[in-house]
């Protein structure tokens, strides 16, 4: 047994053939010399030699590694079978690829978002500190994704905490890198001095921040780039160090690059540029968050000291809370708000997997998608099993013949094994491909303009290994078991049964029935789920939001770089709106502080003047200009809109919506009533008289029910309330979008070229807000449809088998006088029984399982009967034709042929 000999065996075979020929020639010569006739000499020589073929075979076998040779044969044969039976194999591979691919991709995303720990040193020691769940938290301004701390509170915590060996604050923001015109954002990160040190992140180039960099009043101490941003924008050149980068118009010198693979502490997000927390006042100018005790914008994470447990840390921060909050009480709070503030308690939670808004929003949907994918895997495996069982039965005859000719059982079983393995291997490879594709599709789907998603797209081998193993197991089980059983029985018996199988087949067929029923049931569950999601999305897309979203362009204008006085800003705002209205093609335009479904919210507490009704109430607010309602398409129901009468010097007026009346006034007429908004001491009184009623419109999210909203006039909000950083203009125009954008840019540049502009349509903003619902509807719809298809194929296979088995019986019936209808009824009833059982099971499952998705639905209960009925109908529509085809073919049977075909 040598490898060299194995590889040289064709050569050796040829050698030996020559040798044999030479031998025979010698013998023939000898025979002729002895006096035989040449022909006789040849025969005698051959007789003397014996069996040439056996000799060749024996020698060949000596030269080969038997195992490898037969393996090669088996695989080549299996490949040939694939070519001969493309239908079976393509369906089988489709099943495998789907099951494996879907599960791997979704698990990968789930793992990245939920399960992985941060790629930093000892992530299990990391702990997030925030205010414990409290219905009164919190009052003030909130401006980042994770607004847990004010600067003052963070500073106090830092100096007084004892539980952490290192503690840092951070906030994610977007910085504009252009100096005017349309914005170009980078993902920014404010990081306190201990950020990198506590996480154990080292610089890949230059240096990262140290506590010395983060001192109050630091101005512009430098910026640290992330590794990926450095590669993208600076080509990974070392010359990036020392260059200046503009963030919101302020220059920062690049001092270093963080290590590769570090993306911050937010899972699913990444930062491009990090600057110290102390640089915030410089970047935001007048809008600075740092000096305001009521501006929440930071998040805090600490690393536990050696020997400290999470519970101890939690207790510790809780204990020091009163002192911290007392020292940081914002001066503008009313006594009531102050009391609530002082009662806040800090708590600590594990942060080993970082923090993630993505996780909170998408955890449930991803788990549900994983469950859906798992169901698809089960259905796919059941289908695969069914297919292989059917095939094995059809090949029984072939096996019997082979056994009779002289194949050994192990050899036959090895061949079946090779076939199953080949199928599993190809299926797994396709599954891996599908997984990659699906992964990038998911990431692409979930990335919106505002919130890009960063997920490491490397392959996760765990899920892939698991699902592949499952697939291989199915293949082996259902490919080998029938083969082993068949080879164990007497070949004669097999052949005598006219290729229709043994009594064993009865058990096997019971299994197939069960498989098909299970498939139908599970498919129905998936279809119900899919339909629930699709209908939810449809309801969300078609609900009356209280405004007309189509055709509205939103322009966010940021003029903070201009550093105007409040009076000039007020005039600037009015000028902007005026110019917008004058643009060619613009029908309506108006400004607003909070764009609907835009993610921003302004709410305040207020009282009714005259205490009728008495008490403090909470309502949403929105500052608008005249023209807003007309632009957005919300009709005025009573009273009047804001107009030129409303100036900074005239009495303040307000417009309320229907929910306001319903919730606070029990339907009484609000026009004429006055409300007083709660303001801090030292701020001007704000009393508003209600002059109009508007239709309800959605504020923050489409899913939320209508909430009370009070609209105030931006024209009346002069110093000091005027918007400091910018304004949002909504416009409706006849002109094409590109022309609109060009015209707006021109006009705004004419006012001042250093204003930053951001454009989007209201329609796209709303679509983005429904991302989760769209994800669920799309994917579950896709899987549901596929499941239905697979179930139909399974049903078709079983029906075809039934018909094949009962062929002679049907032939006899037809010969005896049964007509087509009778035969159809006969076969159809079998099919109907299977389908019905499956559907009933499916309905039962869905009623139980759909409770899990209640939170994700909108406007539908999970047991919505219309949806279930529709799903049953859909599945029946897909499955019935598939299963009736064999029945119809059976009814057209020529009895003579059926009986003769033994």
């Amino acid at each position: 047994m040598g490898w060299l000999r194995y590889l040289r065996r064709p050569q050796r075979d040829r050698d030996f053939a020559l040798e044999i020929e030479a031998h025979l020639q010698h013998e023939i010569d000898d025979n002729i010399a002895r006096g035989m006739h040449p022909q006789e000499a040849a025969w005698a020589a051959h007789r003397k030699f014996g069996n040439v073929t056996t000799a060749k075979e024996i020698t060949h076998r000596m030269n080969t590694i038997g195992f490898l040779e037969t393996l090669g044969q088996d695989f080549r044969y299996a490949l040939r079978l694939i070519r001969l039976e493309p239908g079976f194999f393509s369906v089988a591979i489709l099943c495998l690829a789907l099951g494996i691919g879907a599960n791997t991709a979704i698990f990968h995303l789930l793992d990245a978002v939920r399960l992985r720990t941060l790629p930093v040193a000892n992530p299990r020691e990391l702990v997030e500190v925030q205010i414990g769940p409290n219905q009164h938290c919190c009052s003030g301004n909130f401006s980042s994704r994770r607004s847990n701390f004010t600067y003052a509170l963070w500073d106090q915590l830092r100096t007084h905490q004892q539980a952490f060996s290192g503690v840092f604050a951070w906030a994610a923001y977007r910085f504009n890198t252009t100096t005017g015109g349309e914005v170009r954002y980078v993902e920014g990160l404010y990081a306190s001095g201990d950020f990198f040190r506590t996480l154990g992140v080292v610089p890949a180039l230059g240096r990262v921040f140290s506590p010395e960099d983060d001192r109050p009043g630091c101005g512009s101490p430098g910026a640290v780039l992330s590794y990926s941003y450095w590669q993208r924008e600076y080509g990974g050149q070392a010359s990036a160090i020392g260059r200046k980068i503009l963030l919101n118009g302020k220059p920062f010198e690049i001092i270093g690059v963080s290590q590769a693979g570090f993306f911050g502490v937010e899972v699913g997000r990444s930062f491009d540029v990090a600057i110290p927390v102390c640089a915030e006042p410089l970047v935001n100018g007048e809008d600075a968050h740092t000096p305001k005790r009521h501006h929440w914008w930071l998040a805090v994470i600490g690393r536990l000291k050696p020997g400290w447990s999470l519970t101890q840390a939690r207790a510790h921060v809780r204990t020091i809370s009163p002192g911290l909050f007392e020292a940081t009480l914002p001066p503008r709070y009313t006594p009531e708000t102050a009391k609530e503030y002082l009662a806040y308690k800090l708590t600590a939670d594990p942060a080993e997997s970082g923090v993630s808004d993505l996780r909170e929003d998408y955890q449930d949907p991803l788990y549900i998608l994983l469950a859906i994918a798992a169901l698809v895997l089960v259905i796919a495996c059941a289908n695969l099993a069914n297919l292989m069982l059917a095939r094995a039965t059809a090949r029984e005859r072939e096996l019997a013949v082979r056994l009779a000719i002289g194949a050994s059982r192990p050899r036959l079983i090895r061949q079946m094994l090779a076939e199953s393995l080949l199928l599993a291997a190809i299926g797994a490879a396709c599954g891996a491909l599908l997984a990659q594709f699906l992964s990038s599709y998911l990431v692409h789907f979930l990335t919106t303009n505002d919130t890009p998603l960063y997920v490491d797209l490397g392959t996760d081998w765990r899920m892939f290994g698991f699902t592949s193993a499952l697939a291989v197991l199915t293949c082996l089980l259902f490919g080998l078991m029938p083969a082993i059983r068949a080879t164990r029985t007497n070949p004669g018996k097999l052949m005598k049964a006219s290729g229709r199988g043994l009594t064993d087949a009865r058990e096997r067929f019971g299994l197939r029935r069960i498989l098909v029923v299970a498939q139908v049931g599970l498919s129905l569950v998936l279809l119900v789920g899919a339909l629930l999601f699709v209908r939810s999305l449809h309801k969300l897309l078609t609900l009356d939001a209280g405004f007309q979203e189509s055709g509205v362009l939103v322009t966010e204008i940021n003029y903070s770089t201009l550093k105007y006085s409040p009076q000039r800003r007020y005039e600037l705002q009015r000028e902007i709106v005026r110019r917008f209205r004058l643009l060619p093609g613009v029908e309506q335009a108006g400004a607003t502080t909070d764009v609907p479904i835009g993610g921003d919210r302004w709410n305040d507490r207020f009282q009714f003047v005259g205490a009728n009704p008495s008490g403090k109430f909470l309502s949403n607010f929105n500052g608008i200009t005249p023209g807003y309602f007309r632009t957005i398409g919300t009709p005025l129901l009573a009273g009047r809109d804001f107009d030129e009468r409303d100036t900074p010097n005239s009495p303040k007026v307000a417009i309320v919506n229907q929910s306001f009346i319903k919730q606070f006034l029990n339907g009484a007429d609000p026009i004429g009533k006055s409300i007083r908004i709660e303001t801090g001491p030292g701020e001007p009184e704000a009393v508003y008289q209600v002059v109009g009623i508007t239709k309800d419109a959605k504020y923050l999210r489409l899913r939320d029910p209508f909430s009370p909203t009070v609209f105030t006039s931006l024209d009346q909000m002069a110093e000091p309330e005027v918007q400091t950083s910018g304004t949002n203009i909504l416009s409706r125009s006849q002109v094409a979008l590109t022309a609109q954008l060009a015209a707006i840019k021109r006009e705004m540049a004419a006012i001042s070229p250093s204003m930053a502009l951001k454009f989007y349509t209201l329609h796209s903003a709303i679509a983005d807000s429904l991302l989760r619902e769209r994800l669920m509807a799309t994917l579950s719809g896709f899987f549901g449809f596929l499941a239905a298809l697979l179930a139909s194929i399974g049903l078709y296979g079983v029906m075809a088998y039934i018909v094949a088995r009962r062929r002679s019986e049907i032939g006899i019936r037809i010969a005896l006088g049964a007509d087509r209808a009778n035969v159809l009824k006969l076969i159809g009833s079998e099919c109907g029984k299977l389908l019905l059982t499956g559907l009933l099971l499916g309905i039962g499952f869905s009623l139980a399982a759909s409770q899990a998705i209640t939170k994700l639905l909108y406007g539908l209960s999970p047991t919505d009967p219309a949806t279930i009925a529709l799903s049953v109908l859909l599945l029946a529509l897909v499955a019935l034709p598939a299963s009736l085809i064999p029945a119809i073919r059976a009814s057209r049977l020529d009895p003579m042929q059926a009986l003769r075909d033994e």
Partner: protein
Amino acid sequence: MARSKQNDDRGEMMQGTLAMLILRTILLAPAHGHTIAHAIEHTSEDVLQVEHGSLYPALHRLEERGLIASFWGTSENNRKAKYYRITPAGRKHLASERSRWDQIVTAIARVLGPATE
């Protein structure tokens, strides 16, 4: 078609003795397959009839074990033929097989005793 065990046994024994015979035949001079077959038949006065077909596997097995070596050459009839010659290992093997064979024969003879009528 299962091979019956009997044949295997006979094959085994034949292999061992056939190997010995081949080695002895080419001990003095190399020869090709045909010559070896005829030599064995001739020297044993046609008592030992070797099926030529099974000679070759035996030759190849011996070559595999390194007891003989092969080379192509021209035969007496001016035909190309594969010649086999014995190797030093082969010589040693032949000697040990030879003594073992003698031992067996002596032992059997002792058991059988002198030839009775």
